[in-house]
C-alpha cells in the first residue's frame, strides 16, 4: 500500500497545490474582512461563481479574448462585493455579528438562484480545443492550464501582499484591522478602507472562480464548496492573517487531495469540515493567527 502511495504522491501533491492556490485566493477575502469587521462574509464562494459566469458571458456570448474576460470578471465582482456590503452588511455595522452572518447566507442563496434563473442550472464551459497533453514534472503530470492556474494564483497573492505591505491604502487597511477607532482618530476613512477591502477580496475570489472554470465546468452551485473550504483555510491559517490564509489554503488543498487517497472518494468534501472542526476545537488561533483567539472562543 505504501509503495503505491509514494508512487502517486507527486501527483497528489500537485493536485493539492492547484486546489490550494484557488482556496488561498478566496481565503484572503475572508481573512481580510474578518480582520476589519470581525464577521464572516459567507458570500465569497458565490462571488467566485459570479466571476466564472462573468468570464463566461464575456468569452462565449461576447466573443472577447480570455484576458478580457478575466478583467471583466474582476471588475464585475469588485463592484459586486462593494454593492453587497452596501446593501447587506453596512446597515448592520452596529448590530449583533450573527445578523451579518445571516444576511451573508441570504446573499449567497440569492446570488446562486439569480444566476441559475438567468443562465439556467445546466453546466457550462468556456474551455475549448482538444484535451491537453500533460507534462511530466518530477513524477507528476501537469497540463499547461494547471501551470497557468498555479502561476496566476501565486502572482495575485504576491501582488496583494505587496499592496497591503507597501501602499498607503494597504497601510490604512492594516491600521484599521489593528484598531478601527484609533485608525479613525488619525484620519483614516474606515468606510473607504472597508470598501477597498471588499473590492480586493471579491476581485481575488473572482480570479479564483475563473481559475476553477479553466479546468472544470461552471454551474450556479460551484462556489459553495470552495467557499466553505476557503473559510476553513482562513481558520486553519489563523483568521485575520493574510499569510495564514495563503498557508491555510495550500494546507487544505494538500490534506484533502492526499487524504482522499486513503478514503472513499465521496468523502473528499468532508475532509475539510473535519479539519475545520478540529481546528475550531483544538487550535482556534490557527497556525499564524495569534491575537484573535478571544474572537473564536469565549
Amino acid at each position, binding site marked *: 500500500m505504501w509503495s503505491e502511495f509514494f508512487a502517486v504522491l507527486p501527483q497528489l501533491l500537485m493536485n493539492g497545490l492547484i486546489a490550494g492556490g484557488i482556496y488561498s485566493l478566496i481565503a484572503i477575502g475572508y481573512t481580510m474582512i474578518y480582520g476589519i469587521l470581525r464577521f464572516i462574509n459567507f458570500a465569497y464562494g458565490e462571488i467566485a461563481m459570479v466571476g466564472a459566469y462573468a468570464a463566461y458571458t464575456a468569452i462565449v456570448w461576447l466573443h472577447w479574448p480570455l484576458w478580457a474576460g478575466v478583467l471583466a470578471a474582476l471588475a464585475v465582482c469588485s463592484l459586486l462585493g462593494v454593492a453587497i456590503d452596501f446593501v447587506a452588511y453596512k446597515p448592520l455595522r452596529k448590530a449583533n455579528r450573527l445578523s451579518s452572518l445571516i444576511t451573508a*447566507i441570504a446573499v449567497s442563496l440569492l446570488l446562486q438562484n439569480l444566476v441559475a434563473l438567468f443562465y439556467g442550472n445546466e453546466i457550462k464551459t468556456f474551455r475549448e480545443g482538444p484535451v491537453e497533453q500533460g507534462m511530466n514534472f518530477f513524477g507528476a503530470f501537469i497540463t499547461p492550464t494547471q501551470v497557468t492556474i498555479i502561476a496566476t494564483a501565486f502572482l495575485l497573492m504576491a501582488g496583494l501582499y505587496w499592496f497591503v505591505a507597501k501602499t498607503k491604502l494597504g497601510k490604512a487597511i492594516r491600521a484599521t484591522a489593528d484598531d478601527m477607532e484609533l485608525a479613525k482618530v488619525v484620519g483614516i476613512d474606515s468606510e473607504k478602507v472597508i470598501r477597498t477591502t471588499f473590492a480586493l477580496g471579491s476581485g481575488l475570489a473572482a480570479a479564483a472562480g475563473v481559475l476553477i472554470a479553466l479546468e472544470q465546468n461552471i454551474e450556479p452551485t460551484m462556489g459553495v464548496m470552495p467557499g466553505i473550504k476557503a473559510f476553513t483555510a482562513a481558520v486553519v491559517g489563523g483568521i485575520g492573517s493574510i499569510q495564514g490564509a495563503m498557508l491555510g489554503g495550500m494546507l487544505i488543498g494538500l490534506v484533502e487531495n492526499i487524504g482522499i487517497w486513503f478514503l472513499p472518494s465521496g468523502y473528499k468534501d468532508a475532509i475539510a469540515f473535519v479539519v475545520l472542526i478540529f481546528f475550531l476545537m483544538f487550535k482556534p488561533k490557527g497556525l499564524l493567527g495569534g491575537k484573535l483567539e478571544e474572537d473564536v472562543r469565549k
Partner: protein
Amino acid sequence: MIDLLGMWPYFLHLLIYIGIYAILGMSLNLITGYTGLLNLGHAAFWGIGAYTSVLLVLAGIPWLLALVASAVLAGLAGLLIGFPSLNLRGDYFAVATLGFGEIIRSILINWSEVTRGPLGIPGIPRPEVMGFVFESNEAFLALVLALAFLTYVFLRRLTRSSFGRVLRAIREDEIAAQALGKDVNKYKLTAMGIGAGFAGIAGGLFAHYITFIDPTSFVLNESVLMLLIVVLGGMGSLEGSLVGAVALVLLPEPLRLIGANSDITWLKTGFAQVRMAVYALVLLLVIIRLPQGLLGEGRNRK
C-alpha cells in the same frame, strides 16, 4: 375561474408541510431563538430522524417506536455536535454546526450499504399505529397537527419554566448567567439535545409522508429555510415560528399558481429558483428592517 374544491388535495399538502415545518421551526427556535446558538445544521437532525425511522420501519419495527428512536438518535446527535462546539463564540458555533451538517450529508451519501446513498430509499410505508394506517392525506394531516400541537405544548411549558428563563439569560448575557451560578454548558447542551430531538420527530413524519427520501432533502438550504422561519416569526417566540412556518410554505405559492396559469416560461421552468430567491430576499429584508421578526420579543435586543 379557479376550482377551489378541486384544489383541496393541494391545500391539504400545504397544510401537512406547514405542520412539519412548524415542528422544525419551533425546535430550532429553542436552540437559536431562546438560547442564542445559531445552528446552521438543523436539517442534519431532521435527516437523521428521517433515515432512522425509515430504516427501522423497513426492518419491521412499529412506526411509533421508530419515531421515538428517531427523536432519541437525533437528540444524541445534537449533544454530539453541541458538546465540542460549546466553547465557540457565536459565528464560529454557527460554522461548526454547518460543518457537522455537511459531514452528516456526506455520510448519508457515501454509506450506501445502509442509506442507499444518492439513490435514496423509495417505497416507505405510511405510519401505522396499532393497526390503523394513516394512508389518506386527511388522516396524515391529523397526525401531523397532533404532533405539532404536542411539540408546541411541550416547548411552551419548557420555555416558560425556570429552565427557559435560564436559556434566555444565557442568550442575553452568558457571563452574567454564569456569575449567577448556572451551569451554562449544561443548559446549552440540553437545549441542543431537545431541539435536535424534535427535529428528528419531524424527520420521522416527513419521510413517511413523502414515502421517498434521499440525501438532497437534508441540505444546508433547508437549514437556512428553518432559520428563516425562526427569524421571520421572531426569535424566542413559538407562536412566531408557527406563523413563520405558514408564511414559508404559502409565500411562494401565488408565484406557482401564476406560473401554472400563464405563459411566463421562466416562472414555470425556474420556479424552484424563484422560490429560493424570494426566501433569500425575505431573510435579508427581515434581518435588516425587522430584526425582531413578526412576533419576536421586542425587548432591547441587539
